[in-house]
């Protein structure tokens, strides 16, 4: 039931399939864990519940206040609308809101599953690519040479579902709000995030050792070569002078 509908939706929205592999060797592909889906569903229901509780709370007081006001003015007929009509209006508005709410909830619910399925985190020996999103599809590419910070982030509810986010940061500021900055990428909802972190750190270290991609290292090598040439020239001139004297 879900599959054909989802496939049709994905086709209608022109959602692209698996992203291309980024440049580099020894590709590893990570996907969001099953626990991430369950975590998102839990959050989904938690917020729905919270929303309904708040709605009920506000609605209760609204009715209380309205009835008090109406009750006061009933005899004087100061209120322009007949209480019966008002009740109908309130009910109709409430019904429309409820339908909208349910429609939104259904779409959000369906998107949850797809959002979980359409996640790819690809890591090669020199770069990584993060793909996420259903309505808005985002693909982020970073090279290891530019990565500044890697951290594992896990909230209390995520801990219950044994998943965590791996945060990857490149240089450059943001507006304080880290989640909004384009310089930060997340491997959301992976199981064993520590292992993935260690793996990336390992690859970062290797990159540093071989000096790949670092403009500064290349510069030093040129200088070394120049020094070698100078030494050689010096030795040559010494030999030449010896020959002249001899």
């Amino acid at each position, binding site marked *: 039931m879900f599959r054909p509908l989802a496939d049709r939706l994905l086709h209608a929205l022109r959602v692209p399939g698996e992203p291309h592999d980024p440049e580099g060797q020894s590709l590893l592909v990570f996907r969001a864990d099953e626990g991430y889906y369950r975590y998102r569903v839990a959050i989904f229901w938690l917020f729905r519940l919270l929303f309904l509780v708040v709605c009920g709370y506000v609605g209760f007081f609204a009715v209380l206040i309205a009835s008090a006001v109406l009750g006061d003015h009933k005899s004087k007929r100061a209120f322009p609308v007949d209480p019966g009509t008002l009740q109908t209006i309130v009910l109709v508005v409430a019904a429309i809101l409820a339908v909208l709410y349910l429609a939104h909830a259904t779409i959000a619910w369906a998107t949850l599953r797809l959002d979980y399925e359409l996640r790819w985190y690809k890591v090669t020996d020199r770069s990584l690519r993060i793909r996420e999103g259903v309505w808005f599809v985002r693909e982020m590419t970073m090279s290891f040479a530019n990565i500044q910070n890697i951290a594992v982030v896990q909230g209390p509810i995520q801990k219950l579902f044994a998943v965590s986010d791996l945060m990857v940061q490149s240089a450059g500021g943001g507006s304080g709000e880290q989640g909004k900055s384009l*310089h930060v990428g997340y491997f959301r909802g992976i199981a064993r995030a520590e292992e993935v972190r260690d793996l990336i750190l390992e690859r970062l270290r290797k990159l540093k050792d071989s000096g790949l991609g670092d*403009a500064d290292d290349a510069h030093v090598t040129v200088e070394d*070569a120049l020094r070698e040439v100078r030494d050689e020239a010096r030795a040559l001139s010494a030999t030449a002078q010896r020959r002249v004297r001899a």
Partner: protein
Amino acid sequence: MDAIYAITRPHPRLLTQYVLQALFAGPLSPLILLILYFRYKTMEYRFDEHGVSKRYGILIRREVNLTYSRIQDIHLGSGPIQRWLGLADVQVQTASGNAGAEMVIEGLLEYEAVRDFLYTRMRGVRDDRPGDSSVALLREIRDELRATREALG
């Protein structure tokens, strides 16, 4: 690669995208449509060996120049409308303080090729570093000097 160097103007579908985008703005639609129309009309890209530049605007001219090697990360983003039109935004960022993108390359059908093109020129993606050829050259000079010295000695 030459196909990328040849890019100067966005695809006409970008105008369609802008019109639809403006429609979503509600009462402000006409104003936004006007702004976006002129943005489309004046938008120009230039890709060369070292960097990419984008300029647009009539009253306020804007120009962004980026060097490939300074690129920090590249994002590819697309909403449903853009995907319908076969377009996507390539958001390019350097290490500046902006949380947003320094340059958004929009309205190109070959966005994926552009992304890959920029990406392979980013720091740390390819082996061939600027110093490599100079080092090889210097090594040759050194060997030549050494040969002369040995011939003399």
